[in-house]
């Protein structure tokens, strides 16, 4: 950008005169972007305007602009809403447990796969392990309910063979979370290992060779060479996972939960769905959703700063 003479203020930052010539020359390119841009405007930007509903007492007749401001009434009532607080803690609890169990699983799987010497076996295992990732949660829910069914499920059949009475897994609020976590691991361990295996494949083979010469055991090679090389990937993914702490995910919960386990299963996403689309409390549901989005955004921004300080690349 050229400075245009000594004019003060805004003129100083006009693009150089050559720029508009470039625009004319490339006008076709701008035209190409028009249709996608319109789509994005309608379906991604226009809903943002609807966020105003969180701050108003929405009156269908008056519309969003005409309705009165509600002085953050929804946010205040969120604080006192027991069901919201329950959903909030459930979201956090489920995500913390996921970090404990579902996050390390692909790492361990990748390390284990890496030790496979038989390439054909390794490839078959990998292909099979990707299969659950392609299933929708409706299908996974179908599997889970059927496998754990008291009268027809295999799990209870095995238990009965050992003389144990059938367990009602899905309606037991103590067992629901373990079942949920198992489903998460089942779905994600294979696919999640791809990134780590990619990082491992980038390791310089000569490192292993020189370790071999120095007499390192297999265990030592894994701990001293393999693991440190995937630490960057682990850190980044960990921070990203942490920044999603309030987003426990609508799909898994919705397809697995039932009225009897609401106290542990209801998360923010399902709460917003019920309040907004089933109870028609649009304004309040929009407020809860906004709360979740803002916190998520803040966490993503903060985690990006942290990642940037640790390495020299970030998300943006």
């Amino acid at each position, binding site marked *: 950008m050229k400075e245009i003479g000594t004019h003060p203020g805004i003129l100083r930052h006009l693009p150089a005169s050559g720029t508009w010539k*470039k*625009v004319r020359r*490339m006008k*076709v*390119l*701008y035209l*190409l*972007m028009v*249709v*996608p*841009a319109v*789509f*994005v405007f*309608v*379906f*991604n930007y*226009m*809903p*943002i305007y*609807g*966020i105003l*509903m969180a701050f108003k007492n929405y009156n269908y007749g008056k519309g969003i602009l005409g309705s009165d401001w509600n002085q953050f009434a929804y946010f205040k009532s969120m604080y006192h809403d027991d069901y919201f607080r329950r959903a909030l803690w459930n979201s956090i609890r489920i995500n913390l447990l996921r970090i404990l169990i579902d996050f390390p699983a692909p790492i361990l799987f990748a390390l*284990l796969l890496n030790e496979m*010497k*038989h390439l054909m076996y390794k490839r078959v*295992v990998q292909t099979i*392990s990707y*299969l659950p990732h*392609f299933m929708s949660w*409706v*299908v996974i829910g*179908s*599997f889970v*309910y*059927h*496998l754990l069914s008291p*009268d*027809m499920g*295999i799990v*209870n*059949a095995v238990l009965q063979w050992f003389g144990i009475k059938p367990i009602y897994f899905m309606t037991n609020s103590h067992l629901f979370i373990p079942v949920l976590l198992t489903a998460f691991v089942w779905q994600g361990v294979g696919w999640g290992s791809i990134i780590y295996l*990619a990082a491992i494949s980038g390791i310089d*083979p*000569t490192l*292993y*060779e020189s370790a*071999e010469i120095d007499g390192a055991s297999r265990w030592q090679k894994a701990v001293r060479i393999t693991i440190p090389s995937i630490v960057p990937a682990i850190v980044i993914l960990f921070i990203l996972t942490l920044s999603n702490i309030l987003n426990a995910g609508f*799909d898994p919960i919705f*397809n697995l939960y039932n009225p009897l386990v609401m106290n542990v299963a209801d998360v923010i*996403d399902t709460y*917003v769905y019920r309040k*907004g689309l089933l109870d028609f409390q649009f304004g309040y*549901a*929009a407020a809860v*959703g906004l709360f*979740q*989005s803002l916190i998520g*955004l803040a966490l*993503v921004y903060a985690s990006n700063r942290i990642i940037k300080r640790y390495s020299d690349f970030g998300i*943006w």
Partner: protein
Amino acid sequence: MIAAPNKKIGWFDVISYFMLAVFCFSVLLPFWDMLLLSISDPKKTASLALRLWPKSFSLDAYEFAFSYNKVPLAYLVTIGRTVCGTALTLLLVTLAAYPLSKRELPFRNYFTSYFLIPMFFGGGLIPTYLIIRKLGLIDSLLVYILPGAVGLFYVLLVRNFFMTLEKEIEDAAFIDGAGHIRILFSIIAPLSKPVLATIALWAMVGHWNAWFDALIYIRDADKLTLQAILQQLLSQASSTIPTDTQNFNTLNPDKYVTGKSFQAALTIITIGPIVLVYPFFQKYFVQGIMIGSIKG
């Protein structure tokens, strides 16, 4: 991998091979179980006996599934949205990514931000629902295709890929008198087959597995997708299944279907295409993750 292969099989290998075998077994078990349920005679599977091998064989559940008026329609709807939605996405994503990939485009940063910001912040469920309603898309088949057509992550992927292409090819075409659009479709697109294939596959899987938009936007049962019907069955929202299966059984005395065997058959026919096809395209899916994680 270790450079010099060690042929000796130690105890660690035995254990790890065994654990992986157990893992594979546990991944495949739900599929096998569901498959068996769908082809077994429902009267014989009411017991708790371990079902690892089919004891009886009957395709009644499938016959019911395909004759059940909603299912063939849902198949058509699902295939339709997958094909149309993917095609539209590919087109729009390419149209957006190409200009954004030109470093000399004036105001490029603003436009890039325009397409990137919604990735991080959006209206949320309720405002989006209200916009869809305002646009008159409720209960319309278009609601499957239009809202998600411009996948923002895909735009980023394709843009980055375009940026890695050699500029000389375009310059040569310019000199020959070709315009931007001609270059895009005749030169750039064919060169971008890998990334476009990846996006197409991801989009197809996404459409095939989609059920939530049907749940909240569609009222007409004829417009449901396969997964939406499955979801209704699962949540027992559909109360007509017991009567429908009974009618079938009455009309066909030598056949027998239960709600459970129907659900199993429906699950199998819903996931069938994906299960059969994904191993062959594995390479594209995996490569998509690689490209996506090495962001510029």
